[in-house]
């Protein structure tokens, strides 16, 4: 039973060795990665804004989410109402209205942003929050997912994720609904810092 019998069966049944193909470098597109990123992210339901200084983000938050009461962010410059260092259990984050998190890079071909566990401080934060705001340097955008995987190490941290828009579903008659189980909106700020 178990491991040995499974491996034994595989050894008996597997086909003759086949080489692992090389992944080539694919040629770039006509439009710049930033242009393509904005296009794809907006198609996926994200809102794109730009900021030259991190201090601008606080004003943006007030503007975009005037009703928000609980703001949580591991980014020190952001005015948070929740101290993430004091959170003992992820369940305590249930009341978060807006979370602001730094992303590591953006992917032009699908409008996705790579986030790591340490940037979220708590893994649950980008999902449990009602609204999510991600900051990425404009210069971090790479053309394809291949480029992205060349630029990150997926096992550097215990958890990492590509997020490509607000949570969505089309499970009821294929009608697109934004705001399924995760964040209801995604705002991506392309930063110059």
């Amino acid at each position, binding site marked *: 039973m178990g491991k040995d019998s499974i491996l034994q069966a595989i050894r008996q049944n597997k086909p003759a060795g086949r080489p692992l193909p090389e*992944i080539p470098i694919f040629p770039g597109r006509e439009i710049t990665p930033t242009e393509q990123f904005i296009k794809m992210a907006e198609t996926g339901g994200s809102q794109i804004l730009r900021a030259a200084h991190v201090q601008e983000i606080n004003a943006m938050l007030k503007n975009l989410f005037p009703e928000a009461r609980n703001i949580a962010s591991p980014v020190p410059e952001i005015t948070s109402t929740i101290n993430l260092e004091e959170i003992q259990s992820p369940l305590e984050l249930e009341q978060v209205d807006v979370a602001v998190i730094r992303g590591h890079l953006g992917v032009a071909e699908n409008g996705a942003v790579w986030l790591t566990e340490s940037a979220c401080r708590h893994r649950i934060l980008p999902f449990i929050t009602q609204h999510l705001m991600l900051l990425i340097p404009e210069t971090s955008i790479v053309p394809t997912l291949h480029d992205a995987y060349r630029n990150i190490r997926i096992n550097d941290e215990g958890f990492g994720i590509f997020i490509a828009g607000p949570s969505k579903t089309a499970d009821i008659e294929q009608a697109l609904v934004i705001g399924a189980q995760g964040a209801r909106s995604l705002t991506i700020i392309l930063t110059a810092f």
Partner: protein
Amino acid sequence: MIDHAEKAAEFIRDEPRTDWHDESLWFIRHKRDKASQDVPEWEQLRELASGIKDNVLSELDHYLEQFEANALQNGVQVHWATDAAEHNRIVHSILKKHGVSRMVKSKSMLTEECHLNDFLAEQGIEVVDTDLGERIIQLREEPPSHIVLPAIHLKKEEIGALFHEKLQTREGATDPGYLTEAARGHLRQKFVEAQAALTGVNFAIAETGGVVVCTNEGNADMGVHLAPVQIHCMGIEKIIPKAEHLGVFIRLLARSATGQPSTIYTAHHHRPRPGAEMHIVIVDNGRSAQLGRSDFRNSLKCIRCGACMNTCPIYRRSGGHSYGYTIPGPIGSILTPGIDLKAYSDLPFASTLCGSCSDVCPVKINIHEQLFRWRQIIAQEGYLPSGKKRALAWFGKIMARPAWFRFTGKVARLALRILPRPFLYNRFNEWGKARELPEAPRESFQEWYKKNRR
């Protein structure tokens, strides 16, 4: 014994509904076309994906061992299950150890295949499916009808009525936004209460010992990052060698599945979060046997995108439930005969062999060729339904004797012209049930050729 034709006949009795089902799926197929055309190297990616999987299948034992060693190093607890029963026992033992009575689950075809929910319910554990489509069919107590779109067969009126009964939504409400919001509230409660969370696995990376889980709703992440115990269940074929291969497969997956450039969430899990536990259950359940069938082992390359279902003219007009198995459609019809040849002997015939499935398959599985191959095996093993068996036996005899062939051809051409309808369309004419017989030419090709050749 699954009788696909009989179940399909039930399905198409409601014609407008059949058309609606057909069009919904064709619309997704269309979105897939557009998304794939946006990627200039699409065909190259399919070739690569297929090649990487060839390598995986030929070294599966090494990759699995490498994966396990790395996962253990990451602090993950790894379990191996030979079959569905062992898988269910393992999951149950993890839950029991932690005294879990409530678990949330995100979409996993493997646990459907193993009937985990029923098993755990018998042990007194509540399992809540958290993907909206899955939750809908769970509340209706029926199996999914599609691997990516579990509730594709349901109308919003039916879902509205279901939610009114189970989630106390307004009577008669059918707005998808309103119903989704109600489910969101209901599921948030379940996430908060859950003591364990289980997900399926899209890809498992040998080199790093981690797993990747793709969702649009964020339900898998809501589950595993809240609960103290996280469990990922995977078939042995989910392995890919290295992180860089994710680039190939993830570029293909969502585009093929729904026409999106990427799923909204592509989560990479490597280590348990501080204070929590992470388990991975590796399941065989017939896969190593399929690996031994040289004509069919390519079916193990499947990344469960559902594209072959969306494009299939039979699936679109017969619905997922007509296949009688967790994984319906073309891919289901080549997986099931390997599980039970007799019980599923009808499924390889639920196809026109048009080859559209193979054309859209992101990992280039030769689905329609395998369907044809299963038909041959089913005939050899004597599992053909008697009508088909008799007809084919006669046809074989006629084809083998040129004189008989010429004679029957003549008779048939004459008969088609002069016989009244009831002689031609009756219970012996399976083919003519919903079809018109072709107009018969006056002469055969042979006769024409003799006259006209120079």
